[in-house]
């Protein structure tokens, strides 16, 4: 019986590979659907909800309120007649802007702000509204208002109170407060937004939607300036592709709090270097490529490593400075669009370098069969490498590719330092950061080259026989080709990964 069973054709066994492929395809499809569905999922706080956030920043002379509203589908439908003023059934940019101005004026009117018990009026400084895709093909609205209230001469111990008198509606109500060159002595609201300015709402079962409608702050003049908030200030958040890790965040916060003494400055430079070194170790960066490159080159001279490191550092620093400059001038669109393109360019560069390497190593295996490359370490047969062409060029190209995409955390460090009014220090930190980056990459290269040599030596040692010699010869010929091919593949992968973001 069991034999008969065993002899029976098992179609599923034949198509197991097919099944695996199918599963993979399904998984990918599901991932895409999930991505697409994020836009169409139900509003996390219900389709009725009108969610409001007031981010207060107390600075000398004025209270800035970053007022955000997130309207779910039904309130958006209710707002529609107020937006579509020409009744053509669609909301033009001008209509949206007009509605945003009116809605922000209403919101400013809803804010009751007082300084030491005296009411202060609030004025709208900026107003924008955007439609986003919601559920069932219906739009949702996001309103952002810059509201400012003059605070004539707050003294030490002055009390600022704010009450959002907007009507009670289902939805998230959140207030945060921070000081900018002012210190909050007491505050009954948190500093950071739980919802990231109504961008993502906590969903766990043990949390209640925020329902904060008023805030009372006791302030005194003086204090560190508000550092450019990571992912919060309009600008930086949109510029950086979700970069700054917690470590960088902590570092920037540290710089923001301290007075700059020589000792602290030196420490900060060292820490920035370490951060850069760590950053190069994080996944998804050029190390793999560098490693593959190193493997394809076999042994390398110190000068090459130096050239590589210098190029990475310089390119990276230049990139970060450019990006920082763009952020500082308030241009948020250009950097946001530039980063993916830089990634594509970097990937293409890597692929091009890989191609030249590939061509060279192929040519070498083609007509260099007479050469014997298994010299002991320490010797360098220049004649055997002469036909590799201008290697300095490809090293520089590689370094350029490695440093081309500015790392977001470096930008954060720079912007943070600049916000302190110490731009030059920021530049120094970014330089240190790039150096750390280069150090790691160079180290990886040296290690790889070193281990390659070690491997070669092992082979030499074991392979005094004819077979060992043969293996060695084959290995010396195929490894560079394979590694160069890997560089090409990785470069293409990097470029392709950046492409959707760049185009879309």
């Amino acid at each position, binding site marked *: 019986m069991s034999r008969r069973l065993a002899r029976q054709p098992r179609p599923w066994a034949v198509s197991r590979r097919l099944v695996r492929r199918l599963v993979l395809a399904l998984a990918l499809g599901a991932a895409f659907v999930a991505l697409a569905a994020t836009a169409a999922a139900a509003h996390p*706080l*219900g*389709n009725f909800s009108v969610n409001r956030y007031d981010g207060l920043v107390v600075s000398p002379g004025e209270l800035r309120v970053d007022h955000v509203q997130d309207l779910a589908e039904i309130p958006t439908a209710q707002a*529609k007649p107020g937006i579509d003023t020409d009744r053509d059934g669609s909301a033009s940019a001008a209509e949206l802007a007009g509605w945003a101005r009116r809605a922000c004026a209403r919101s400013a009117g809803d804010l009751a702000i007082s300084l030491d018990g005296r009411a202060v009026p609030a004025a709208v400084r900026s107003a924008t509204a955007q439609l986003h895709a919601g559920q*069932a093909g219906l739009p949702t609205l996001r309103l952002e208002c810059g509201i400012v209230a003059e605070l004539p001469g707050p003294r030490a111990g002055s009390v600022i109170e704010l009450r959002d008198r907007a009507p009670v*509606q289902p939805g998230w109500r959140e207030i945060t407060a921070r000081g900018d060159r002012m210190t909050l002595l007491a505050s009954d609201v948190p500093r950071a937004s739980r919802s990231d300015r109504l961008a993502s709402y906590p969903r766990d079962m*043990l949390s209640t939607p925020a329902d904060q409608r008023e805030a009372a702050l006791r302030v005194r003049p003086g204090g560190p300036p508000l550092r450019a908030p990571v992912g919060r200030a309009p600008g930086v958040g949109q510029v950086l592709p979700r970069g700054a890790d917690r470590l960088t965040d902590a570092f920037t916060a540290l710089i923001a709090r301290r007075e700059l003494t020589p000792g602290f400055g030196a420490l900060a430079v060292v820490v920035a270097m370490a951060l850069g070194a760590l950053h190069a170790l994080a996944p998804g960066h050029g190390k793999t490529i560098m490693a593959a490159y190193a493997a394809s080159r076999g042994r390398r001279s110190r000068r090459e490593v130096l050239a590589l490191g210098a190029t990475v550092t310089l390119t990276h620093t230049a990139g970060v400075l450019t990006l920082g400059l763009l952020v500082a001038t308030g241009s948020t669109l250009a950097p946001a669009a530039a980063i993916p393109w830089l990634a594509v360019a970097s990937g293409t560069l890597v692929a091009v370098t890989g191609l030249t390497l590939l061509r060279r190593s192929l040519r070498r295996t083609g007509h260099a069969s007479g050469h014997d490359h298994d010299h002991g370490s320490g010797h360098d047969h220049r004649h055997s490498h002469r036909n590799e062409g201008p290697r300095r060029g490809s090293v520089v190209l590689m370094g350029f590719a490695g440093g081309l995409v500015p790392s977001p955390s470096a930008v954060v460090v720079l912007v943070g330092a600049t916000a302190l009014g110490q731009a030059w220090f920021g530049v120094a930190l970014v330089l240190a950061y790039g150096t750390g980056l280069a150090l790691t990459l160079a180290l990886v290269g040296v290690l790889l080259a070193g281990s390659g040599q070690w491997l070669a030596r092992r082979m030499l040692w074991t392979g005094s026989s004819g077979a060992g010699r043969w293996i060695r010869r084959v290995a010396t010929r195929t490894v560079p080709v394979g590694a160069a091919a890997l560089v090409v593949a990785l470069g293409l992968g990097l470029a392709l990964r950046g492409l959707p973001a760049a185009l879309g």
Partner: protein
Amino acid sequence: MRRALTVAVTGSLAIALVLGAAVALGPRSSQGTSRERAGAPVTAEAVGGLATATLPAAIAGLQGHLRAQPRDAAGWATLGVAYVEQARLSADPTYYPKAQGVLDRSLQLAPTDNDAALAGMGALAAARHDFAAALQFADRALTINPYGSRENAVRIDALVELGRYSEAMAAVRRADAAQPGIPIFTRVAYVLELQGRTAEAERVLERAMESATDPGDVAYVATQLGELAWSRGDLRTAWRDYQTALRADPAYLLALDGRARVLAARGDLAAAIRDRQSLVSRLPLPAYLTALGELYEAQGRKDQVRQQYDVVDTSIRIARANGVTTDLETALFAADHGDRATALRAARAERARRDSVQVDDALAWALHVNGRDREAIAQARQAARTGYRNAMFLYHRGMIERALGLRSEARRSLAAALDLNPYFSPLLAPRARAALADLGGRP
């Protein structure tokens, strides 16, 4: 040991606090929007006394307790009940999935003998209009704890909404004997009213009013009394009751809705519109939007009418996208202001799930607007089977009879509608009068 003791004590204190409040004040659990529209007394989902102020504090306490003691099944069940309660108080549907998760957790931790979690599941199902499931959960909870006040309340509500009135009456009697109190009194009153015994219903509610002290309770019971007065066209009493409710809880939306109705009936359309605008800005439920649209329609403001109905359409589209079965209010809205085929489909779907007089009435009307008056009249007669006196039902029936050429029956029904409550709808009462005059006046 000592730690365990402290934990147990805090835990049970927190639980006792919320359970006590929730059970004592448990509201009627159905969402009576169609009834409000029909001008009939409420089964309002309102809320007894868990006043807006105390519930969040209780929830916060339970959340803290459960973060420290995540294995406390009873604590999870209580939090689930509190979430359902909060969803009703704030009309914030975010709490429903949370309640579901929390109650699931409780049942995971204690799969047997967990009547609190089952009762919570029942209340959640009823809040989501799945009355058959609500009934099942309540029955399972009652086999564990036959005296549970919450499970009894859920069971009564489910039976009423499913149209099983005699069983509902028996359940009400039993609960009244076991656990008399405001949540049971209001349910007794509603079941009596559905049988046309309005005088008895009023007496029960007045008794409930005497024992109500908490502002939430006062608002809840006073609104029910207002609805009763409104259903017989007694504007003065209805006004007084709604005002009592709004004094107790100014944010009580059902009372605001009732007051807007009285204002419109008195001819003060501007004030009624103001109330209704504030209502839809706070909570854009389809029933409220429709009511505002009808006020605009009565004023001839076509543009505004369209805007309100567009928003109703939006909510119906979203409900469909969410997989929510289109229900009673969709059917009634679509029959009067939207797509007639949709109305019939929604009413039929609802009728397949339950057989309450409200569903019969909605199906009758949906059949009528689709020109199928023969089937419609049978449904309209079904809707009258309990003796429930509702002006909107009578109007629907009269119009169906008129379409069938049953002139004397139509005159009787339309006259009865107008006698019962001459103000039942700012839009439809004039139509009823016109139709009656057209038929040759009162019988």
